[in-house]
């Protein structure tokens, strides 16, 4: 093939990769119910094509650019990093869709449509070359996450969870707006590759924005809590969005922009430590969870912590490999958990006791995933984690120690889950089923295919760090100099993992209440940010009404209401943010309604009130008494003369 053909093919594939799922997804969403029948074939077909396209672009490395905004084109390109990430995501998407198709869902058209749009957004994110392009896809991912978490919209708490997830990640997204502004001000342009060249004050601002966005998406501290709420979504969604793809994009962004973090001096360190601490603390959180999906979610945040750590310490190869391996592993685990949830109607760990034995293939694949997560040699995450820890070691011992501790915690929570599901079921196991939904007691055959494929990935992807494949990866990424883990570390870490596994098997997982509640992050956010904001909003709304209304009694009543509302908050403790918001709004609404009815409409009355007074005053001189008119005229004329005379005084002097 000639170069031209190659590049044309590559470009075509790249466009296909991006637009095909997007268009298919939009079409499915728009047609709605009527497309339910064809949704699955369309979806799987598209995903299949996407996989093909992903591999094509990975090998041809095309790049495209179309004008978008002034000074920032819509640019897509495949480089080494995305050449690895894009196929991974494509394959996992396909697997998840296959699983979802097999599992079945309500409104399949809407579900598959949203998933495909999401896939397109991920593809754009992974190949974006400019900030606007990135942000474009970045926020669409967030929106799809919202839509998918709240997929079962009849249940309010799921929609609320989507809201929390969306708002929290969007809070992080603000960083990208900031970064864009700073990039523009710095004059370096909005190309991602150019960001590192921005001059000094702006560079720091850019880095801060990027960190914020990445932390938000990757559920790093302090944003981690949204991931917990996101578990309200269907399991395939958790598998794709909240482990393999969207969350991973946070780590991916940092890996891509590692040079920028590097040049600022502080950002890399910050990333490394936030990553390490997330890995550690969220690992602890995971250990204490009794809900399988919550456990997996916390573990996702923790594992992404490793990726962020890798980005912070500049281990591109380690981070990438870990990302890929984790994607496969975690998707597998979530799908397995989802399969059980559908079959047994529960995701509570105690209830899942022995679930693995009921469907051995699922159990085995789950075990592979869990052991990989635990870091047992020779499974995937064992090697990838050690590689990035090796880089951490070169940067700082403390980081390494924290990382190692986090790895031990990973072994603990993985072991906890693994042990429970493989234990012998209790006699009355069925009593605890169906707590969350009515189980089908059935796992379809087609659901097992993706599990198997992903299990293979979870088992084997460790090769990405080991020679010879590892060297190839380094070559692809241009990170030949990345530190490699020594034998001691490799062996030591797996021993440590085994030790922890043994401990968990023997002693059971430690319970710490502080971690069980996801470090209280959500409550903190609520108390520190959401509640004050809502309060402020209500106050302002009331102020706004009061400005219009001026009724003192309304203000007084508002104060009383505010007090009552605070009291209610005390009574109920800190309820979910959404509920609080809803309730607060009711209060405001009634206040506003009162303002409307009592105040007999606002400003007209205010203006009219003043005017009425003046209007009445102005009519007073018109008494009807002629002699008073005479007097007024005389006074006016006399005053006019005096005024003119007074004004003359300075002239005469």
């Amino acid at each position, binding site marked *: 093939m000639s170069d031209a053909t190659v590049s044309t093919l590559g470009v075509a594939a790249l466009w296909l990769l991006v637009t095909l799922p997007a268009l298919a997804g939009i079409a499915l969403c728009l047609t709605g119910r009527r497309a339910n029948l064809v949704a699955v074939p369309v979806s799987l077909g598209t995903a299949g094509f996407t996989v093909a396209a992903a591999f094509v672009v990975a090998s041809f490395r095309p790049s495209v650019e179309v004008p978008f905004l002034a000074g920032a084109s819509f640019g897509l390109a495949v480089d080494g990093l995305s050449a690895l990430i894009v196929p991974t995501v494509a394959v996992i998407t396909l697997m998840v869709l296959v699983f979802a198709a097999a599992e079945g869902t309500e409104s399949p058209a809407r579900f598959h449509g949203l998933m495909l749009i999401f896939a397109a957004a991920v593809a754009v994110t992974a190949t974006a070359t400019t900030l606007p392009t990135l942000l474009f896809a970045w926020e669409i991912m967030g929106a799809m996450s919202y839509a998918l978490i709240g997929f079962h919209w009849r249940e309010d708490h799921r929609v609320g969870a989507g809201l929390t997830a969306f708002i929290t990640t969007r809070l992080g997204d603000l960083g990208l707006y900031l970064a864009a502004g700073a990039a523009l001000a710095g004059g370096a342009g909005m190309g991602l590759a150019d960001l590192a060249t921005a001059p000094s004050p702006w560079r720091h601002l850019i880095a801060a924005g990027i960190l914020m966005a990445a932390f938000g998406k990757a559920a790093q501290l302090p944003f981690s809590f949204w991931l917990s709420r996101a578990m309200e979504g269907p399991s395939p969604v958790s598998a794709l969005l909240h482990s393999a793809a969207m969350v991973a994009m946070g780590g991916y962004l940092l890996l891509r922009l590692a040079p920028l973090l590097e040049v600022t001096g502080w950002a890399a360190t910050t990333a490394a430590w936030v990553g390490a601490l997330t890995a550690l603390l969220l690992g602890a959180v995971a250990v204490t969870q009794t809900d399988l999906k919550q456990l997996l979610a916390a573990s996702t945040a923790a594992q992404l912590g490793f990726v962020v750590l890798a980005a912070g310490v500049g281990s591109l190869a380690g981070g990438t490999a870990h990302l890929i391996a984790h994607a496969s592993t975690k998707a597998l685990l979530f799908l397995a958990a989802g399969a059980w949830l559908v079959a047994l109607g529960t995701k509570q760990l105690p209830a899942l006791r022995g679930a693995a034995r009921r469907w051995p293939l699922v159990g085995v694949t789950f075990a592979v995933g869990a052991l990989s997560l635990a870091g047992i040699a020779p499974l995937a995450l064992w090697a990838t984690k050690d590689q990035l820890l090796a880089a951490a070691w070169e940067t700082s011992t403390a980081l390494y120690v924290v990382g190692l501790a986090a790895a031990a915690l990973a072994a603990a929570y993985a072991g906890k889950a693994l042990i429970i599901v493989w234990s012998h079921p209790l006699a009355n196991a069925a009593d605890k089923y169906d707590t969350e939904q009515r189980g089908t007691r059935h796992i379809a055959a087609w659901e097992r295919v993706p599990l198997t494929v992903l299990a293979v990935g979870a088992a084997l992807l460790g090769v990405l760090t080991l020679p010879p494949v590892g060297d190839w990866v380094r070559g692809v990424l241009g990170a030949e100099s990345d530190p490699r883990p020594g034998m001691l570390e490799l062996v030591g870490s797996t021993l440590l993992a085994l030790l922890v596994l043994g401990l968990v098997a023997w002693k059971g997982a430690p319970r710490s209440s502080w971690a069980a509640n996801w470090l209280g992050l959500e409550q903190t956010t609520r108390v520190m940010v959401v509640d004050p904001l809502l309060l402020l909003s209500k106050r302002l709304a009331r102020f706004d009404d009061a400005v219009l209304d001026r009724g003192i009694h309304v203000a007084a009543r508002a104060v009383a209401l505010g007090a009552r509302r605070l009291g209610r908050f005390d009574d109920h403790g800190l309820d979910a943010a959404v509920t609080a918001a809803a309730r607060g709004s009711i209060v405001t609404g009634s206040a506003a309604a009162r303002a409307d009815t009592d105040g007999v409409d606002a400003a007209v009355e205010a203006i009219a009130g003043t005017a009425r007074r003046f209007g009445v005053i102005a009519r007073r001189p018109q008494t009807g008494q002629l002699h008073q008119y005479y*007097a007024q005229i005389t006074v006016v004329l006399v005053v006019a003369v005096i005024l003119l005379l007074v004004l003359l005084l300075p002239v005469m002097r």
Partner: protein
Amino acid sequence: MLLVIVFSALAVTALASGIAVFRVDSMARSAYALAVSFVAVGAMLLMFDLDYIGVITILMMVMEMAIMAIYMIMFMGMNPALMPMSMVHNKRWSAILAVGTFLLLAGGALLIPWPARNGSPAADLTASLGEAIMGSKMLVMLTVSPILFATIVAALVLANPRGRYDRWGDDLNRPTPDDPQQGGLGR
């Protein structure tokens, strides 16, 4: 000097009778007091050689006050000699305003540096007045005539409740006017 004394006497007369207008207790007397005041001013005008205008003033005002007296008797049905009259209001404020205005005007009269006399009166004042009326100020007198015309029409319209159609019928073809009290011309 004599002039000043005579003038002052006239001025005091004018003023005193002017004040009397509002002090006496019947309208007829007020009218007479006013007439006296006008006569005094007319006399002052004569002192300034304004023979023509001075006389006009005196004649007109005497006539006018006579009409006023008759008017009051005829139309208001009052016995002018007997009706005690205290129909005032707002005396205090009226006085304050009047005194204030006076102070302002008198202060002005005294303090303003009046310019010097510019020229001197014509030898024959009445003739010069006639020339002005027929000359430079012709338009003024031209416009006074429509004023008088308008006054006649307007005063009749206001004062007379019964127009020609009331008296002679809508087609003006009644042989005799229909008046509530028959009489007058065209009887």
